[in-house]
């Protein structure tokens, strides 16, 4: 019976992807993409990867949807790019089908028994006091990846800000809506956002031992911030705000500081002080959650519009 469920889910996922690719209208394609992200979240649940499912639902479907809808609004209704040559269509279809078939064959030919690092993680995990192996991998065993990823996040925000018309990148990003928020959006922001912040903090707290963690929590907090902006409950902050910039830098630089301190305390870069691993890991997680939330929210809001003249 579970096989039937998986088959239906896979077919729907494929239909969603085809809907995104085949739909000509940009707005419909983005709406289809939001649905596709939702289905992908269900697929991750079926693959026993709940941490990934949480990330996919929050970032892949939720926040990406806001970015893409906003992008569609800013673009002209009819793209002036010429339609591709219809003769190329069958060729492109053949290339993509060939790639899909080759990949499918590779998936069916995966080695048996499957190579796995699960046992290594299981033996090393008790030393960190963490219960969630994915958090362990992200923050301890592959901490360098996570650190660099924080830098990528920050660089991407720098890239977005660099597109501002203001050479100094000052001022507030353009509002999400051209008109004041409708009453239901404002109501939703007032009621849902506090609950959402609570859920975000819960995910951060639960992340040490259960699925959840800094990424998921940061994404939820960013989504709640966007909801508050959409409901006109908070003003979009100006980019030159010192507190804001401090929050942006707290995660990557805090993590880096802990990494360098690792040489002194544990004898290795990104090592955690023996005996106090969990406390330091939680502190790092809190700092990067804050940075992820603020960075994601600001990336969605886009480049600042320049200093206000008042």
């Amino acid at each position, binding site marked *: 019976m579970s*096989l039937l469920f998986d088959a239906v889910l896979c077919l729907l996922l*494929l239909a969603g*992807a085809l809907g*995104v690719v085949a739909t000509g209208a940009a707005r419909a394609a983005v709406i289809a993409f939001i649905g596709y992200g939702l289905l992908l979240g269900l697929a991750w649940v079926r*693959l026993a990867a709940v941490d990934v499912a949480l990330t996919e639902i929050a970032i892949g479907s939720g926040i*990406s949807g806001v*970015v893409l809808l906003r992008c*569609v609004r800013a*673009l002209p209704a009819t793209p002036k790019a010429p339609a591709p040559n219809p003769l190329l269509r069958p060729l492109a279809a053949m290339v993509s089908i060939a790639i899909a078939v080759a990949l499918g064959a590779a998936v069916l030919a995966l080695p048996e028994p499957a190579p796995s690092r699960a046992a290594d993680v299981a033996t090393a995990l008790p030393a960190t006091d963490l219960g969630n192996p994915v958090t362990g991998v992200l923050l301890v065993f592959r901490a360098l990846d996570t650190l660099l990823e924080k830098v990528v996040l920050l660089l991407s925000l720098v890239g977005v800000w660099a*597109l501002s018309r203001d050479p100094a990148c000052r001022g507030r990003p353009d509002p999400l809506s051209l008109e004041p928020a409708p009453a239901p959006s404002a109501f939703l922001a007032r009621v849902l956002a506090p609950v959402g912040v609570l859920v975000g903090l819960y995910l951060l707290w639960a992340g040490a031992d259960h699925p959840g963690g800094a990424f998921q929590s940061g994404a939820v907090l960013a989504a709640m911030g966007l909801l508050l902006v959409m409901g006109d409950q908070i003003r979009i902050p100006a980019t030159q705000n010192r507190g804001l910039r401090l929050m942006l830098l707290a995660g990557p630089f805090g993590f880096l500081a802990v990494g360098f301190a690792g040489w002194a305390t544990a004898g290795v870069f990104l090592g955690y002080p023996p005996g106090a691993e969990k406390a330091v890991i939680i502190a790092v997680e809190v700092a990067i959650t804050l940075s992820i939330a603020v960075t994601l929210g600001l990336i969605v809001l886009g480049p600042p519009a320049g200093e206000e003249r008042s």
Partner: protein
Amino acid sequence: MTGVHLFGLAGAALVGCGVYGLLMAPGALGRILAFNILGGGVFLIFGVVARRGAGAGFGADPVPQALVITGIVVAFCATALAAALLVRLSAVDAEVARDGEKEKET
């Protein structure tokens, strides 16, 4: 044939869809969406590898899972940056078109 294989094949098909969209999409936004679908398919194959590596009391190998989480966030960054570039590009195009009209008038 198990459910895990099914998801692997679905991932392969998603990659195919993404490649097709990347080649044939009429606008840049369509290409951004197709790129995301391609990425989703690759991540799903990672998920299959993770699920097959289940052991030691974990439902799936945590290392590929962590890689995918990092990947999703990086893919989001790339998408958002591309979308911002696209918006700015269309604004510049509109300005150029307006200036051209003005010059014609005078």
